[in-house]
């Protein structure tokens, strides 16, 4: 059996976009954060732009590659940080799939970005609460984290929407 692996145009596209997302992700991880769990999540910009330009499949690849490769590069693979990041990504992907595949919802970049940011935060928080710190004091952080998610989701959504307008 002779098999050659041929990289398609889509593969190249995924690789390029994932590389971009990873770069943003790593750059952002160097920023100081006021509270654990609050990050602008600017890598979200790439995921949402990919979703709007190339569809759900490509966006899913880019997101999962970003989480996996990003954690390998940062040395957090399979650590608690990775578990949080991974669960957030899975939650975001699930919500994005539902939003994308349900007909007639009519979301734009901002809508997807908001949904992804909130799902990411909620998924991550749930795992943090059940797996790592099942302390009621942590629950009090949740509204604050969700406020940040809405804010950053909106900001990156507007960035994507502006970007896409220039593309068209």
């Amino acid at each position, binding site marked *: 059996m002779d098999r050659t692996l041929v990289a398609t145009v889509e593969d190249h596209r995924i690789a390029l976009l994932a590389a971009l997302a990873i770069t943003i992700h790593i750059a952002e991880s160097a920023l100081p954060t006021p509270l654990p769990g609050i990050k602008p999540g600017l890598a979200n910009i790439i995921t949402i732009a990919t979703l709007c330009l190339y569809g759900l499949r490509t966006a899913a690849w880019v997101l999962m590659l970003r989480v996996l490769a990003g954690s390998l590069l940062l040395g957090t693979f399979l650590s608690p940080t990775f578990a949080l990041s991974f669960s957030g990504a899975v939650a975001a992907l699930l919500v994005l799939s539902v939003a994308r595949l349900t007909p007639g*919802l*009519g*979301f*734009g*970049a*901002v*809508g997807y970005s*908001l*949904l992804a940011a*909130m799902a990411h935060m909620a998924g991550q928080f749930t795992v943090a609460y059940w797996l790592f710190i099942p302390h*009621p004091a942590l*629950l*009090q952080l*949740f*509204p604050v984290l*969700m*406020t940040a998610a*809405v804010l950053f*989701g*909106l900001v990156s*959504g*507007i960035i994507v*929407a*502006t970007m896409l*307008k220039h593309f068209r």
Partner: protein
Amino acid sequence: MRSSLLTRSDWLLLIASVALLPWLYGSFWGSTGGMGEEVHIMVDGRELPPISLSKDQTLTIQGSIGPSVLEVANHGIRFISSPCQGKQCIHSGWHTHAGEFAACLPNRVALLITGRESRYDTFNY
């Protein structure tokens, strides 16, 4: 519509998300109580006017067998000294949460912390 950055659905989602936040604060901060805001001090069954926990001060309360000294600091309150024998009131340390209560029974001095909503209705010990 095409020139707008946000679609109509985006706007609706944004409003729903923003509206969700006060509800989140209400349910996660309200029900799990959180920090106390005021302390109600009772001396021999009489209740003194409530005292804010946000102003640091030291209070001396004349109880039924002598003075009890209370310290308010860092949004909490504790007994510093009391003329009782067991000194359990002092050992119980800082009290910060709404619904918490501490007392020096021999001196008949009790304090109850209240907040926006108490975390517990009462305590078993």
